[in-house]
C-alpha cells in the first residue's frame, strides 16, 4: 500500500489502513518518543496519543508533506507536551507533599534489584531532564539525528529548515548538553 492509498484508507476510517500505519510507523514513532521521555512505558503512552491524534485529525492532513514527516512532527510535539505536563505534576506533588505529610506514600524497596532499578530510573530521568532543558528546536534536531539516525537533509524537511541550520542546531545541542552535565556534576558534588 503506497502513501496515497494509505491516507485515503485512513480518511475513510478503514481498520486495515490503521493496521498498516501501525505496522509501518509504530517503531519510528515509539523510538522518537523514547528519545524524549527516556522511559519505555511513557514512550508507549505518548505513541498511543500520537496514533489517536492521527485518527482524529487525519481529515485536516492536507498531504503537503509525506505522512512520515507529519508523524515525526506529531511525535515530537506530543513528547514535549508530555514532559511539560509531567514536570508540572511533579512540581504540584512536591508542593502538596510540603503541606500534607502523608507517610503512607513512601515505598521502600523490597528486593535487591530495587536499588539498581532505581539507579537506572534516576539515570533515565536525568537524561530526559537534561534533554528537556535544551531549546525546543535543538531537542528535536538532536533526537532525530541520534535516536532516529536521520540525515541533516531529512531533519531539515521535518523541521522546515535548511541543512546547515540543522548542523548548527546539533552542534549547539551537543555543547549545551555537555555544559548541563558539568553543571549537574558540580551541583551533585
Amino acid at each position, binding site marked *: 500500500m503506497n502513501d496515497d492509498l494509505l491516507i485515503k484508507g485512513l480518511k475513510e*476510517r478503514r*481498520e486495515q489502513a*490503521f*493496521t498498516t500505519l*501501525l*505496522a509501518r510507523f*509504530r*517503531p*519510528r*514513532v*515509539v*523510538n522518537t518518543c*523514547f*528519545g524524549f521521555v527516556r522511559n*519505555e512505558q511513557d*514512550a*508507549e503512552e505518548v*505513541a*498511543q496519543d500520537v*496514533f*489517536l491524534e492521527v*485518527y*482524529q485529525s487525519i*481529515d485536516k492532513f492536507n498531504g503537503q508533506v509525506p505522512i512520515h514527516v507529519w508523524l515525526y512532527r506529531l511525535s515530537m510535539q506530543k513528547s514535549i507536551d508530555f514532559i511539560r505536563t509531567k514536570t508540572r505534576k511533579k512540581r504540584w506533588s512536591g508542593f502538596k507533599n510540603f503541606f500534607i505529610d502523608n507517610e503512607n506514600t513512601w515505598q521502600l524497596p523490597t528486593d535487591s534489584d530495587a536499588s539498581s532499578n532505581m539507579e537506572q530510573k534516576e*539515570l533515565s530521568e*536525568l*537524561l530526559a531532564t*537534561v*534533554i528537556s532543558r535544551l531549546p525546543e528546536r535543538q531537542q528535536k534536531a538532536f533526537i532525530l539525528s*541520534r*535516536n532516529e539516525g536521520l540525515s541533516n537533509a531529512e531533519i531539515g524537511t521535518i523541521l522546515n529548515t535548511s541543512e546547515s541550520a540543522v548542523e548548527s542546531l546539533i552542534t549547539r545541542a*551537543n555543547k549545551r*548538553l*555537555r555544559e548541563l*552535565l*558539568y553543571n549537574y*556534576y*558540580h551541583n551533585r*558534588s
Partner: protein
Amino acid sequence: MKKKEQDLFVESLMNQLTHPPHYGGSAALDEKIMTAIQNQNSYTFSPYLRQLVGWAAMVMFVINISLFFYKDPANSYIDDQEIEQILENYQLTSASDWQNYFSVDELETTITNEE
C-alpha cells in the same frame, strides 16, 4: 583527579545520549492502540455533529444564565429596600409611614375645595 572523574562522568552520559538504545515498542502496543481507536469510533459522532453539539451546549448555557437573572414581572418580588430606592429616585414619600395617608387625604380635600 576530581577533574578526571568529572570528565568521565560527563563523557559516559554524553555517550548514552549520543548512542541511545533503540526502542520500537511491542506488538501488544499495536493491539492496545487499535482497541483505543475502536473505542473512540464507537463513542464519537462525526466531527460536524460534534461541533454542532458544542454550539448547542454553548447556546443552552447562555439561555440558562439569562434566565437566572431574568425577573418575571408577574412573579417578581421587590424587597423593601428596592421600594425605598424607587421612592427616593422619584422624590416620593414612603407610604409605610401612616401619617402620609392623611397628608394625601388633606391634599385631595384642598384640591377639591379649590375647585
